[in-house]
């Protein structure tokens, strides 16, 4: 066995009798139903297309970030040859399998909901379409071209689609050899065993040569990880600039893209921590997701928590200091107006103050319940942060619509999360829960043994 001190055969054998997790299935279905109901309520009962599609954007960018962040976690493991997080790699990769559904949701937004953008000529905004003409005769007219609906739609579909295709081939490179290995083992133990049909999409071929599959999978991952890292930054910046920042078409911050893709990866790690802790017994990997693994993951999440705060502060400070009207209005609305200001404070507490205070503790990162709880706080905090980025740009009333938030925003968010939970739990039930063919699975030999060398011998004690 390639993996050092891990019995991968036992892990594969554990797949045989595994059935779908009923709790996860229930959460998923309830979430999806809530999402559909909330969406219908927003459009048909409250008749607020702006708010409804705004909530859809907030939920979509949130869930896309988690799904893509899972692939990035795997990419980082591949790039750095890190061993501490290998037991988490497969769970993270499973997140990436939600991306095709996220892409479908993006198509729905671009085809049906684009009028939520205030720059759209037929916008639903009560104030009509925002004038994109330059404010100065010296300026060139770029916004009208960049924010043209057709161009907007096409570049999103092409850019996001391209990244997801890269992800797909990368994931095949990781899943494929494991599925071949698992298939061969399960078939050898039970001749009547049959692989699920969708395994072939992930690179499974019955009877394929395992060594060749491992070599080609490694090659595929090695070739694609730098490209995915690069395009992740570019495409998620584009998502941030287009889907979120352009809701306020005259505001800009060149940190916005980097802030957005870093926080997407951050929430993906939080979701990974929750999933790993909650599913490890069901998946039979309790002995691999040790407190030391959650400790290391928790440290990384803490680091990204600080990075989130750092990049947020680095955006706010120059805008506050320079005090230029074209920059300050975006912040003033969110930080000083009515309930938005309360939401800003809540986001600061949930995304920084609480996680920082709690995750500094070494012990808590090793304790399951508090760890899951604080990661859940981070996820809710970032959902509220996404809501705060989106909604004030398209909601021009002076009061915060608490009913719409509770009846539309939260259910739509639950819908995206439910779909994600359902898919991830169904997939995890049927695939090896760790990358069983990965040569870097398990502790590094350096960390296990210290061998004595000849020739450096102290005199025997008397």
């Amino acid at each position, binding site marked *: 066995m390639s993996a050092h001190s891990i019995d991968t055969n036992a892990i594969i054998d554990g797949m045989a009798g595994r059935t779908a997790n009923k709790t996860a299935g229930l959460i998923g279905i309830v979430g999806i139903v809530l999402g559909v109901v909330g969406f219908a309520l927003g459009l048909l009962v409250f008749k607020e297309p702006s708010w409804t599609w705004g909530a859809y954007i907030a939920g979509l960018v949130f869930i896309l970030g988690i799904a893509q962040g899972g692939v990035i976690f795997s990419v980082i493991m591949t790039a750095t040859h890190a061993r501490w997080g290998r037991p988490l790699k497969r769970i993270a990769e499973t997140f990436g399998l939600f991306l095709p559904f996220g892409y479908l949701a993006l198509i729905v937004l671009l085809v049906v909901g684009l009028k939520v953008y205030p720059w759209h000529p037929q916008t639903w905004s009560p104030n009509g379409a925002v004038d994109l003409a*330059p*404010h*100065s005769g*010296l*300026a*060139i*007219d*770029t*916004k009208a071209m*960049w924010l043209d609906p057709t161009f907007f739609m096409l570049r999103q579909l092409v850019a996001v689609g391209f990244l997801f295709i890269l992800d797909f081939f990368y994931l095949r490179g990781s899943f494929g050899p494991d599925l071949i290995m698992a298939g061969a083992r399960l078939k050898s133990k039970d001749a009547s065993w049959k692989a699920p049909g969708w395994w072939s999409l992930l690179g499974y071929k019955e009877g394929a040569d395992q060594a060749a599959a491992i070599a080609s999978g490694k090659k595929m991952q090695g070739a694609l990880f*730098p490209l995915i*890292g*690069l395009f992740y*930054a*570019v495409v998620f*910046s584009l998502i941030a*600039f287009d889907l979120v920042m352009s809701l306020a078409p005259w505001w*800009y*911050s*060149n*940190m*916005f*893209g*980097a802030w957005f893709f870093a926080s997407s990866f951050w929430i993906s790690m939080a979701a990974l921590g929750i999933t790993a802790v909650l599913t490890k017994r069901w998946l039979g990997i309790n002995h691999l997701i040790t407190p030391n693994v959650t400790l290391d993951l928790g440290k990384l999440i803490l680091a990204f928590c*600080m990075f989130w705060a*750092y*990049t947020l502060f*680095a*955006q706010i*400070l*120059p*805008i506050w*200091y*320079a005090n*230029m009207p*074209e920059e300050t209005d975006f912040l003033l609305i969110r930080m000083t107006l009515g309930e938005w200001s309360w939401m800003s404070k809540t986001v600061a507490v949930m995304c920084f103050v609480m996680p920082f205070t709690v995750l500094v503790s070494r012990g808590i990162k090793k304790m399951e319940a508090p760890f899951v709880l604080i990661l859940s706080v981070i996820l809710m905090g970032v959902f509220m942060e996404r809501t705060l980025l989106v909604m004030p740009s398209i909601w021009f009333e002076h009061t915060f619509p608490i009913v719409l938030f509770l009846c539309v925003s939260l259910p739509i968010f639950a819908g995206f999360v439910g779909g994600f939970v359902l898919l991830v739990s169904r997939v995890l039930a049927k695939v090896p829960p760790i990358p069983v063919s990965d040569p870097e699975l398990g502790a590094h030999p*350096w960390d296990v043994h*210290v*061998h*004595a*060398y*000849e*020739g*450096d*011998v*102290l*005199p*025997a*004690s008397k």
Partner: protein
Amino acid sequence: MLGNRPATYAETNRDILRVLFKPSPLFILAWLVSVGCLVFGAYHWYRQIFWGLGTDGMNQASFWGTFIVTFVFWVGIGHAGTLISAILFLVRSKWRTGVYRASEAMTVFAVMTALLFPMLHLGRVWQVYWFFPYPNQRQLWVNFKSPLMWDVFAISTYFTVSAVFFFIGLIPDLAIVRDHNTGLIAKVYNVLALGWRGTNRQWRHFMAAYGFFAAFATPLVLSVHSVVSWDFAMATTAGWHSTLFPPYFVAGAIFSGCAMVITLLMPMSYFFGWKKYVNMWHYDALAKMCLLTSAILTYSYATEYFIGWYSQNPYEWEIFQWRATGELAWAFWLMIFCNCIAPLPLYFKKLRHNHIFLFIVTILINVGMWFERFNIVVSSTAHSFDPSMWRAYNPSFNEYAILIGSAGWFFFLFLSFSKTFPSVAMMEIKEMVAPPVRGGHHE
């Protein structure tokens, strides 16, 4: 890839201590060249003090010339050392072992070099104490609202912590140097080693202190160059006012710092015969860091241009166009070539493992990073809002001489260090070697 590891503790001591104290003719030549550059720069600083800032090329529009460019450059170089020693220590990265001591030394000396430049730029250097806040008869107080003042605190904090961290890491190795010497030299090293005996209790305290300082230094790596970037980003000047500057400056600093570590360590390893300790394993990891940070810089340059274009702000777009097409366009394209294009071949392992190619790329990177700061500092002031204030900026001979002098000062310190203290951390190298055992058996 580990390279040829030393087999024993004794061999490690022998290899590292062998190069101390006895300089080769080539080393003496290098040291004399650095001292010569230092004297050359010092003389031109003296000229500047005597005749005033008129000896430099700065003018009413370009009031921040090469002094601030070089200041930011050296602060940037000072980043990689703490990154390698503190952050890689915290993430338990193994390749740092062979290179972190020299990187830390580089950090401390680079920041010492950077600290000269605010004094140089001040002109009236005897008034440098005005930087610091204290009750005084002038009834004046420093302007805490100025980002330049934040810089004073950020850099002095960074320097203090880096220097203490550097010194703490040296203690066990200083004791080894002491134990291999006699007489006055041993006494001096005994004082420097703070009486280190290597007892269990001392090691326990040492490791606790080392971990603490590593954790303490880590946020400073981010903060110091972020604060330096705010010297520019806080202003409303087109091309400077950018929210992206802090992480972009930090990435650039790590980029140039890692390149400088390779530039320094490659000849050092070659001439000192330290291939067991500093080899392709380390260069490969550092080159990958350069590749990653080069990608971050390329992303940042592209984002700045995109947002400048997207914003429809005529001043922003004008400065970005001018940088690429105006009279300083050569500096801009040199920066793009050195920082974005030249590191790309490092993607290929074969080129990454070619010593000469890698060495040349690291030098190009540092040239590019100096010109990045030149582009930022000079172009925005030379081509600001009011066309009547547009002025060409040409650094004077005096400024170039001081730039050379700063390099002389840095290399003088670094070379002197390399002959006085162990430039490879013996204590950590030994962690990768089997411990000596009594009678040939573990006890």
